[in-house]
């Protein structure tokens, strides 16, 4: 019966501390509890029993309370991919914290964001998942295709949805086969189809040679089946240039091969330190940068600011707005950054490509919570409720405008069978100092890609008889 006493009227802060004993949580100070306790004589007598309660509470789900909801943040602020992981984690946390500050949370329930460092390492990512899932996690955004692939089988068992926003397993777009995985607003496969569509509309693609340079891990290899399939259908040739994880900053051999193969266009599926090295090598080998297109993980400010003017002309895909002019971003600056509650190194970093993408990841999750609250009538929802919320999300332009994100991205409309939304991308170009949006939204070749996604989803589950699926129609 000690549990309810700890969750008393004035002990919200205490409860949070007790449940996240090893990891600091935004806006909480565990030391307060110790200070208060030490001031009372009674506390001395209670210390042994409280210690036991602390131990128990560490394993108790946070979200059982009605006044908080728990949202884990799988981040990587260390290691070779920190340049991408850091701004994403900042944007993600800052949006939830802004909602807490500005609106008092979502539906009156505050969101607790807890970071767990994965280092972009699948094993560590799974450890983070196992360590946090019993705290009442509403959803996971692994920010790694490798971790996503590892979590997909676990998510249906634990009933916690995975939102791999624009990454992960493309086949997870099939909601019937993957009820617990979401890839809004689009998949790697559809992104690739949009990029090829752009190339086709700029001089035609038939008879051309497309070079594909990629990080030689699950993420980089993900779009290859689609690329191979479309090369036959659209009549272009593909030259592949894998870059091993250890060779990310030493790509001269790959670019010598590019010079040998002379592709008409280059497409890159890179991440972290691979991206600036690739752009520099392209310049060294005099490859025209306006025919070199990175995917949406190869077009951040961190990738290009170290290169500066040398990288002028380089193109990259994106699906989220750039800059600080959006109302939601302004609110973050006002309610979080200016109050010193953000981890961003500088206020200028707010609005950068990956910061805004991390923020949008939080926007999708926050919207799903809102939908789930409305549908279930609960204030503090569960992972299962969250899944329903994600399937019924409706982030159209009117709703985006209301959220302070007008013209920030295309519509994200949830659906039981379609966990992707076949969203569009746009291309941005580096002007030597900053990214500039260059195109309108480019729709994917959904008619071509969707059957391939269905095929891939069926193949994924074919040898997994116990895999949870659902029927939508």
């Amino acid at each position, binding site marked *: 019966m000690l549990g309810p006493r700890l969750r008393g009227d004035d002990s919200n802060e205490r409860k949070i501390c007790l449940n996240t004993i090893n990891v600091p949580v935004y806006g909480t100070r565990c030391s307060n509890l110790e200070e208060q306790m030490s001031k009372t004589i009674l506390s001395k007598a209670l210390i042994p029993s409280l210690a036991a309660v602390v131990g128990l509470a560490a394993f108790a789900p946070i979200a059982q309370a009605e006044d908080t909801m728990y949202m884990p943040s799988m981040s990587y602020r260390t290691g070779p991919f920190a340049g991408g992981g850091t701004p994403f984690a900042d944007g993600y946390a800052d949006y939830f914290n802004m909602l807490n500050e500005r609106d008092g949370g979502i539906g009156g329930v505050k969101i607790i964001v807890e970071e767990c460092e994965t280092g972009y390492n699948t094993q560590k990512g799974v450890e983070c998942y196992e360590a946090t899932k019993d705290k009442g996690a509403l959803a996971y955004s692994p920010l790694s295709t490798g971790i996503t692939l590892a979590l997909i089988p676990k998510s249906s068992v634990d009933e916690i949805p995975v939102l791999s926003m624009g990454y992960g397993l493309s086949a997870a777009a099939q909601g019937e086969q993957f009820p617990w995985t979401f890839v809004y607003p689009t998949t790697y496969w559809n992104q690739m189809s949009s990029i090829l569509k752009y190339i086709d509309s700029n001089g035609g693609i038939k008879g051309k040679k497309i070079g594909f340079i990629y990080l030689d891990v699950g993420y980089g290899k993900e779009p290859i089946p689609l690329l191979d399939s479309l090369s036959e259908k659209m009549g272009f040739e593909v030259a592949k240039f894998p870059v091993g994880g250890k060779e990310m900053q030493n790509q001269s051999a790959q670019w010598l091969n590019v010079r*040998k193969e002379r592709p008409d266009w280059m497409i890159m599926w890179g991440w972290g330190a691979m991206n600036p090295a690739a752009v520099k090598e392209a310049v060294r080998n005099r490859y025209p940068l306006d025919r070199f297109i990175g995917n949406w993980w190869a077009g951040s400010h961190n990738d290009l600011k170290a290169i500066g003017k040398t990288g002028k002309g380089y193109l990259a895909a994106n699906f989220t707005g750039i800059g600080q002019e959006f109302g939601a971003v302004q609110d973050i600056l006002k309610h979080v950054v200016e109050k010193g509650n953000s981890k961003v190194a500088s206020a200028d970093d707010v609005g950068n490509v990956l910061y805004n993408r991390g923020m949008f990841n939080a926007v999708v999750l926050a919207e799903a919570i809102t939908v789930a609250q409305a549908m279930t009538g609960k204030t503090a929802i569960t992972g299962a409720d969250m899944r329903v919320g994600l399937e019924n999300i409706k982030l159209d332009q009117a709703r985006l405008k209301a959220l302070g994100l007008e013209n920030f991205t295309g519509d994200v409309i949830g659906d039981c069978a379609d966990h992707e939304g076949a969203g569009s991308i746009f291309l941005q170009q580096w002007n030597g100092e900053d990214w500039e949006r260059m195109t309108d939204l480019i729709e994917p070749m959904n008619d071509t890609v969707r059957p391939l996604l269905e095929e891939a989803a069926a193949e994924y589950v074919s040898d997994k008889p116990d895999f949870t699926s659902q029927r939508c129609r």
Partner: protein
Amino acid sequence: MEFLNSIFIAPFIDMGSAPDFLLQVVWEGFVSGVLYALIALGFVLIYKASGVFNFAQGIMVVFSALALVSIHKAGAPAWLAVILTLVIMALLAVTIERVVLRKLVNQHDAILLMATIGLTLVIKGVGELVFGGEPQSMITEELGIPTGSTVWEVFDGIVIFQHIDIAAAVIALLMVAGLGVFFSVTRIGRALRAVADDHQAALSVGISLNQIWAIVWFASGVVALVTGIMWGARSDVSFALEIIALKALAVLILGGFTSIPGAIVGGLIVGIGEKLFEVYWGPLFGGGVEAWFAYVLALIFLLFRPQGLFGERIIERV
């Protein structure tokens, strides 16, 4: 038959049909080799003096480069940033000697290796805490390192020489020459060789083991800084650079753990070999052979010449 053709005939026809490109491949391999050799030099210095395989050399490269860039960003001119970075590396060397090595004198090699692995984690943690995890741009122009390129028109084609690559090659060769003179001519250099040959004999003739170790770790820190500048200028300065240091292991096996010329020759064999193999034979393996070529080559060397090309052959009485 086609397979044999793709191994033994087609690559050489490719080389002959585009000799300008072959020259470019060899030049790029040469530059990579020089840069590998720079990393390997740091390992050799410490191994020569203490018999320790310094697992922390890679992170020292990252740490020194990040320190340089961060000090410059804080407002110091480039020359001052270099001096302050050298001071930091000297302090690091003294600290390592005092806190780690002094406690482990006469311990087994494996213990010393484990200590350097621990050291790697400490330096990495401190580095991430102080400098953050985001990539930084190397202050190439501020340091006066030439940028731009020169084109050589040859064999109806072109070979592109990046000025920064030429600078890297020149600096590496100067460092090797300087270290060679340091080891053979100076008093400290001779003392260092004495320590490398026999710790106890060196101690008995009055050589301070602690002083020598601090000096050699500092020299290794200087090599790390030069390596960090050169590698950082080619891509950027981030913790991913640490991974490149692993390639130095293959270089050391080829060249020998105790030989400075061996580090250079080993670096060049790995650098040129992996580029040629990746470009002309890589397609046979689906590309990406550069990731394992050096280690396979090292494995072959271990089978036939375990002491490396220039390493000392150790014959022990049993």
